[in-house]
Every structure is written in C-alpha cells, then in structure tokens.
C-alpha cells in the first residue's frame, strides 16, 4: 500500500470523511447556522471527490492487493455519483427545513451512501463489493424512512429494509458459491492463485472461466452467478425484484427518491458491467443469457404497463425506473457478446448518465411544485400546469419526452445506442419486444403531458418557494436537451475513449 493506492481509493474515502466531518460540525455548531454551512461543507467534499476521481485519468490501475481497480468507466461513474450526492444535498434543503428533520445526519448519510456506492463501483473483489453495497443499502433504508412523522415514509423504509436485507443475504450466498466453485475448480486443475488475489476476485473468476474447461457451465458457479446477478438487479430495481421500488419512491421525499433511484442504478449496473465483461465470450451455456433476457423484457413490460395507469407521479417515475432498468439490462446483454461489447459499454454508460440526470430532474420538479415541503404527488395536481406555471410544465415535459425517447432529447440517443448494441449482438426479437414496451411507456408519459398542457383546470396558482429544487430541475432539463443535441460536447472529453477501453480482462493474470 502506498500513496497511489490511497489516491485510487480516494474518491469514496473523501466522501466518507466528508460524512464524518459534516456530522461533527453539525454537533459542534448551533442548529440554526448549520443549514448553509453544512450544505457548503458537504458540497466541498463532493467536489474534492470529483477532482480526486478526475485526476486518476483513464488508465487502469489496481490498488489494495487488486481489491479495487480504477479506469475510465469507474472514474466517470464516481464523478457522476459525487455529482448526484451534491445535487441531492442542494435540492433537499427545503424538505429538511419544512419538516425539521435532523440535517447533519441527513447529509452524512447521503455522503456515506455515495461512498458505499463508489466502493461498489471500483471494487474488483466481490467481498469489497459486498461491503460497499451494504454501506449504500443501510444508508438507503434510513433515508427512505427519514421522514418518520409520515406513515408512508416509515413504511417505505421498513419495506425497503426487509427486502434489502433478504437480498443482501442472497448476494452473500451467491458470492460464497462463486468463491467455492472457483476455488475447487482451480485446485482441481492445478491453477495457482496469484499472490494478492482471492478466489472472489473478478480477475480470478475470469481466469477460472477462461482457463478451466467446463467451468462456465458448472452448476455451482452458475447458481452463484445467477444469485449474484439477481440480487444486484434487485438493488437496481429491475423486475421482478421491483415490487418495493414504487412504494419506496412514493413514500420517500422527492429528492431522496431521486437519489435512491439513481445512485442504486449507477452502482449496481457498473459492477454488473464489470462482471459481464468477464463472462463475455465464455461458454456459460444458455442459463445466464436466458436469465438476463427474461429480466430485461419483464422489466420493460412491467415497468411501462405499471406506469401507464398511475395516479401518483412518484409511483409513475418508480415504474419508469423499472422500465429503464430493463433497457440498461438490454445493453448489458449486448455486452455479453465479444463483438458488441465495446459499443454496449459505451451505450450503457451513456444511458446511465443520461438516466441519472433525467430522473434527478424529474424528482426535483416534483419537489419544486410541492407546497410547504409536501411533494406534488398526485397527477391531478398537474392539471393545467401549463397555464399556471409554464416553466415548470415545460421542464417536466422535457423530462417526460426524454424518458419516452423522443428525438432531440438525450433519451432518444440513449435508446438508439442500446438498440444499436443490441441489434449488432443479434437480439432482433428482443429489440422488437422492447420497442412495444416503449410504445406503452409513451402513453404513460403523454398522459402527464396532456394533463399539464391540454386540460384546463380551475386550480389556483401555486406559489412555490423551493428555489433549490427549481435550480436543479432547470439545469437538468438544459442538460437533457444539450446532451440530446450535442452529446459529444457535453460530456467529459475523455469520456468515449476511456469508456470504450475494455475494463479488466482475464489476460491481466499471467
């Protein structure tokens, strides 16, 4: 271990330290001054974390005895995660104020959840991934139930906790099975475990898959892999593990819902992407393909049909997040093919970034239109919004069009990228089912647009005071359009080059 190791792991460390500092300053100062200062401090640490990630550059480096690996993909995701945390903290000042919730703990939890997500994103060893996912999840359970005075929020937290704990056990079981199967296979075939690597290291697993004949189809490994994939899909809110997602998003205050929906997806899909890159080109039989296709299509159908008949806009976004999880899984599916892998990774990364921006923005609008910190949740509350608050209506309209994938928004390019990767991987009929799902989703989003612009209402003008959420929503909407028209200029310059470089392959181990 040296400075390089610390630097590589620096982004989550800074977030975690930030969490502690924010918590302690909150204790030390009088309650009323901490609002601005705590926010400022938390954002400072987020920026420091982003800078730390950025200075790592795009090349691959491993640290902590190959426990973690950082390369372009991880850097991008870490920056994104820190940005999401910062934006969430900015957007939540209103609800903290209105409901007199403990502020220091809130900011600390956001930062720590983000740190956990970063650990997950950068880990190369599944044990580290598990620790990361637990840090993130435990913070999520608390955040979902943060507004204890409200029954819905408490219910969301409890549900999330019970399901999440159960899934964590399955994840751990899956990792244990993989550990066992890799160890057995390597021992039986006389392969040496390289110094510093463990049997749960993705590189070791890759070695076993590519060098031990028949390992990819051994039942022990497949069962472990399917449990691992399934539980990570739960964390990302993919059907059929989605039951809890709409409840949680509806129960939690809007900024937290946006945070949960995006951070969990970014983290879980990134580690899945890593896991899938080592499966690419390996003979794993049909099992994993079938599971992944099934999950993706189920999510797209369930998410879009579920969204079509909602009365609550937060539930609508909950189902929409399920559907979009499905599209991302389709991209992951394409990354299982060796030829379409590079395109698939770029497409999925871009999709995740775009989805995060759109979702954060949508939930920010919900908070922006709320009154006294209470979210504007009922879709009927949006009736005639175009006449009362044109800016908010246009902003939300942009997000809805982007979510339905209409050209000139970023949602179109993401869908285009995923479908291009998918079709070049040969998944024609999968793409057709996904397109049908999109059409159903389109109806769901159009219903809201129609309520906002096409239906007259007698509702009075709502005077909103939540300036922070407004700022977040409007800047996200601008990004959605700019990225939809000029994606190459809007992203980090190194984005495409670094992301398309394959992350880690079995060849690393000689």
């Amino acid at each position, binding site marked *: *271990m040296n400075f390089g190791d610390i630097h590589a792991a620096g982004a989550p460390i800074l977030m975690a330290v930030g969490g502690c500092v924010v918590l302690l300053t909150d204790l030390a100062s009088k309650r*009323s001054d901490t609002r601005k200062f705590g926010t400022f401090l938390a954002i400072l640490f987020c920026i420091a974390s982003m800078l730390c990630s950025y200075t790592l550059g795009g090349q691959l480096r491993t640290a902590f005895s190959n426990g*973690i690996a950082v390369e372009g993909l991880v850097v991008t995701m870490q920056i994104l995660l820190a940005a999401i945390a910062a934006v969430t903290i900015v957007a939540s000042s209103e609800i903290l104020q209105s409901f007199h919730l403990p502020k220091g703990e809130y900011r600390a939890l956001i930062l*720590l959840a983000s740190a*956990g997500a970063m650990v997950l994103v950068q880990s190369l060893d599944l*044990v580290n991934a598990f620790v*990361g996912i637990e840090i993130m999840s435990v913070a999520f359970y608390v955040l979902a139930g943060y507004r204890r005075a409200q029954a819905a929020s408490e219910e969301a937290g409890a549900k999330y906790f019970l399901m999440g704990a159960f899934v964590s056990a399955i994840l751990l079981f899956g990792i244990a099975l993989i550990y066992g199967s890799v160890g057995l296979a390597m021992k039986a075939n006389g392969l040496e475990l390289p110094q510093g690597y463990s049997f749960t290291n993705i590189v070791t697993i890759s070695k076993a898959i590519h060098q031990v004949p028949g390992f990819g189809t051994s039942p022990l490994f497949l069962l472990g892999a399917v449990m691992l994939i399934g539980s990570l899909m739960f964390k990302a809110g993919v059907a059929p593990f989605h039951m809890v997602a709409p409840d949680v998003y509806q129960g939690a205050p809007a900024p937290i819902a946006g945070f949960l929906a995006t951070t969990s997806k970014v983290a879980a899909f990134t580690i899945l992407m890593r896991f899938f890159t080592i499966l690419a080109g390996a003979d794993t039989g049909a099992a994993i393909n079938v599971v992944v296709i099934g999950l993706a299509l189920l999510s797209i159908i369930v998410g879009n049909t579920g969204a079509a008949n909602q009365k609550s806009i937060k539930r609508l976004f909950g189902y929409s997040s399920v559907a979009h999880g499905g599209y991302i899984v389709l991209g992951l599916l394409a990354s299982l093919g060796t030829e379409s892998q590079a395109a698939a990774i770029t497409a999925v990364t871009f999709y995740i970034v775009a989805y995060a921006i759109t979702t954060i923005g949508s939930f920010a609008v919900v908070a922006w239109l709320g009154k006294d910190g209470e979210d504007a949740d009922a879709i009927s509350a949006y009736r005639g919004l175009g006449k009362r608050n044109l800016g908010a209506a246009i902003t939300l309209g942009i997000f809805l069009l982007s979510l339905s994938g209409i050209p000139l928004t970023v949602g179109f390019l993401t869908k285009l990228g995923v479908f291009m990767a998918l079709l070049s991987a040969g998944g024609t009929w999968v793409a057709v089912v996904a397109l049908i799902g999109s059409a159903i989703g389109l109806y769901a989003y159009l219903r809201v647009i129609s309520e906002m612009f096409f239906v007259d209402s007698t509702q009075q003008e709502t005077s909103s005071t939540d300036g922070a959420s407004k700022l977040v929503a409007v800047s996200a909407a601008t990004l959605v359009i700019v990225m939809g028209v000029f994606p190459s200029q809007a992203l980090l310059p190194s984005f495409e080059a670094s992301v398309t470089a394959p992350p880690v392959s079995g060849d690393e181990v000689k």
Partner: protein
Amino acid sequence: MTLQALLSGQGLMFLFFAVAAIASGLLVVILQNPLRAALSLVINLFSVAGLYLSLNAYFLATVQVIVYAGAIMVLFLFVIMLLNMGQANLNTSYRGVRTIIAFSSAIGFGGLMSAVALKGQPDVMLPADAMVTGSSAGSVEGIGKVLYNPNLPWLFAFEWTSFLLLVAVIGAVVLAGKRQQPSEDKA
C-alpha cells in the same frame, strides 16, 4: 461426497451440525410462539458455531457463541419478555396463496441446491479439505494476520466495514431518536 467420507468423525460432525442448523432454522420460521422461535434461533447459531469449530475456526466459533448466541439473543429474549409476548402467538396462518408460494419456492430452492450439490459431485470438497491449517490457524492471531495484511485483499474491506457500522449507528440514532417538535428550530 461419498458415504464413507461422511461416516468418518469429521463427516459425522458435519452431518450432525448441518442437520441441526437446517432443522432449527426451519423451526424459527414455523413456530408460532415467539419465545420458542427465539430459542430455536439460539440452537441454530450454536449449530453454525459447531460447523465453524469443525473447520478449525476456533475464534470464529467462540465469537459466534459469545456475541450472537450469547449477547444478541439474550437481548432478543429480554425484549420478548418485556413486551410480554411470551404467551402471544404470532398472527401467522399457514393457509392461502402466499403460503403455497412460499413453501413451493422454499422446496424449489432446496431442490435446486441439492441438485447442484449432487450434480457437481466430484467437485464438492470433503469438510476435511476446507479446514484452515497452519500453526496459528483459526486463532485470533491468525485472523489478525490475514485481516491486517496489506498484501492480502481483506484490509480494504475490513476498513470499510467500520463505515458500515457508522452508517448503521447513525441510522439507529435517527430512526430511534426523539421525534423533533415542529416548534424547535423555527428560527
């Protein structure tokens, strides 16, 4: 795993503790009386400790008994007694679609696991092969040397575990703390 291997001392020990762990685990779920369920959990934790012991992991077994079976379960029982739930039956009925789904998925999962274990027969290790070996194996010293060695991958995870505990503590404080009164910081 051949029958012969199972009938060795090690094998019998494994068999005993494994059956005990599964049976007591099932009882935790099935029993209606909370007190009995909690006591079954104690047996379950003890059985797992026994499994650790059979793998030479003395320290882990001891910690399991002291911390889980001892401290945490005592707290559990305490709460049950305090709330006077000892006599109350949990309101669970084993009827309806949910129960059928639950049981069939449990059986399905158990079947899947057994199928995997049986199909992968030549691969599956004897308990004896999985034993931790070496002079300080299974002791506090041995675990410490593995956990804190910067050349092994566990240090990173170990350090982050402390943050996991921190998050849990913050969460517990937030969720269990006094509900703030609206008038408190109106300023």
